[in-house]
């Protein structure tokens, strides 16, 4: 659904500033197509005992009576304080709800490393300051295996150098869109960036009003 209530305040708010280096425990959740309705269900009463910190992945995390599912990775003692998620393909596929990003962040997740991300989840992560890093499947799987084999040990994600430092595995290079990296490091909001182009926008609109005048004209002339 549209998530206007999640949109940033129209006035004055800066974009999320992301630390250039995140050191934390990485929890592997190597499922494909984990959808927004699983990350953040709508239209149902919250599971009893659920907190702001445990609201993400509700159906994976809890039985409906509020008991924890012991096999869910973030319920395991060594991974409860994870700040990095290692996920599969098409993570966050589905709806535009911003809570699919904010709920994991409320639970302490700062970085998501996956094969690919749902398009709206990815856009929301950029707006909200969650770092979404794509990796090839083979490298990703090695990282996930490492994390399982080394429960409780931390890895480092360095946004400036664009590497993931893993003890015993060396540095894994990654790439994210340069603008996104800069935006995170500088704490810019999309609005900040857009407003820097007000002159170009005005000129462009003048041109468009001439080229495609019908687009701008309302209301209609006939019923």
């Amino acid at each position: 659904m549209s998530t206007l209530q999640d949109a940033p305040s129209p006035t004055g708010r800066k974009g999320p500033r992301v630390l250039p280096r995140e050191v934390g425990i990485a929890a592997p959740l190597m499922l494909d197509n984990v959808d927004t309705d699983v990350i953040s269900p709508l239209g149902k009463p919250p599971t009893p005992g659920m907190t702001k910190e445990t609201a993400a992945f509700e159906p994976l995390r809890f039985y409906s009576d509020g008991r924890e599912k012991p096999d869910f990775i973030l319920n395991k003692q060594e991974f409860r304080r994870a700040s990095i998620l290692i996920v599969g393909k098409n993570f966050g596929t589905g709806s535009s709800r911003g809570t699919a990003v904010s709920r994991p962040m409320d639970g302490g997740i700062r970085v998501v490393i996956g094969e690919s991300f749902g398009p709206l989840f990815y856009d929301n992560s950029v707006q909200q300051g969650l770092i979404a890093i794509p990796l090839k499947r083979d490298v990703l799987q090695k990282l996930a295996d490492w994390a399982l084999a080394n429960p409780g040990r931390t890895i480092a994600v360095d946004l400036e150098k664009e590497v993931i430092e893993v003890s015993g595995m060396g540095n894994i290079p990654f790439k994210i869109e340069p603008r996104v990296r800069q935006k995170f490091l500088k704490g810019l909001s999309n609005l900040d960036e857009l407003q820097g182009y007000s002159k170009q926008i005005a000129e462009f609109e003048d041109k468009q009003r001439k080229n495609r005048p019908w687009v701008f004209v309302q209301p209609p002339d006939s019923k």
Partner: protein
Amino acid sequence: MGVGLAYGFLPRLALAQRRTGGKTMYDKIWEEHEVAYLGGITSILHVDRLMIADGGPSTVHDLVASGRTIRNPQLVWTVEDHSVSTSPDRYTNRSLNLGNSWRGYVEHADEMKKLGVQSFGMDDPHQGIQHVVGPETGLTQPGMLMVAGDSHTCTHGAMGCVSWGGESAQNVLITGTVLRERALNMRVNMTGTLGPWVRAKDTILHTIGTLGADSGNRCAVEYAGPVVRGFSVEERMSICNLAIEMAAATGMVAPDDTTFQYMATREFRPRAEYWDRALAYWRTVPSEADAVFDRDETIDMSGLEPQVTWGVSPEHVIAVSGRVPDPANAPAAKREAWRAALEYTKLKPGDPIVGTPIDEAFIGSCSESRIGDLRLVAQVVKGRRVAPNVIAWVVPGSKPVKRQAEAEGLDRIFKEAGFDWREPGCSKCYGSNGDLVAKGKRSASNSNRNYIGRQGVDAITHLMSAPMVAAAAITGRIVDIRRFMAGEQV
């Protein structure tokens, strides 16, 4: 191929390669709207239409009240769909409507009018599901770039425009523009001839089943080929509606005479003095014959059967004559997902999907709730009765659809068959406003998502076309619409 890995390097490479070939429709529309290029694959784009559902007038009002100026109010329109009840009582018992956003439409009506913002609240004769209303009113036009909050905004691409959902309403209101990363170009050619009772919905479900729920990742998908050319505008909307279910950045169909004829009768079509210019422009929008696509798929739809989902992702789909798949036979990477899906949907591997009993039948949503869809449903249910104990709803996509259906007497056919005939809105597609599938119940639904809990707590969703849902409602179980309509024992 590498489409799934296409962050960072690949799109840039692809863009460079593409300069040697003809342009795709997506690239043309992108370049027409590009205000500034920010490096990498990011640009600032001019937005032709911003659609804000539900709280739209309040959002606009709050922004103006905070001292901001709405840059292009005449390019903004709002409609109430997610937050309204579809109960016929919603006009008299207003508390049925979630969040009471209708109040914003009433309170701010004069202000929206003064600003030039089209605002279709619950009481407005245009009201409906945003992805039905946009094309229906003609606010959505070929060649446009439009954004909205909702993920199914890709539906509008059926008109030959580029459209997507996301959280950018505030920025568009203030600057008239949006920041966006450019997608790769993908084409899905649908070839062959469709058999009776096989619909656009079946072709797109089959496409997602064949290519995967992630197959459009980072791609703008153009649906093409003889099957798509033969589709009505409404059917094209059903295809583009599910572009997001293949994780695409957007879905599109090139505009053609079918599109232009449809546009010609829309209320908000280009004004008469601009019509010829607009039409000439629209004709330049389709991809060039030698356009280079980063990924090009051809799917033969000859012999395609009606499709039914068995799991919890739209890619978990089989032909209606098929059997529930066995996770043991799944590709290794999907085995666990299949097992978990079947645990949730409570189906046994090897069982035919036909005969699966259902508790609820839902016909509606931005996927298939237009007049053409409802006419077919009426054909299926006319003179028949919904099975005992099945709750069956028809939710028209918009008030114009509802009025047209009533003018044709379709509502009587539905009601006589035992369907609830509801008011327009999103309803049970995503389970809000109390429009929920009851806990743990099994639903035949022509919506677009069969996710865990999507339609209600522990609700099990089988996605299928509207006529297939209608036949399931009558028989109380999943059946093959073709055999049902042939009068066979099903």
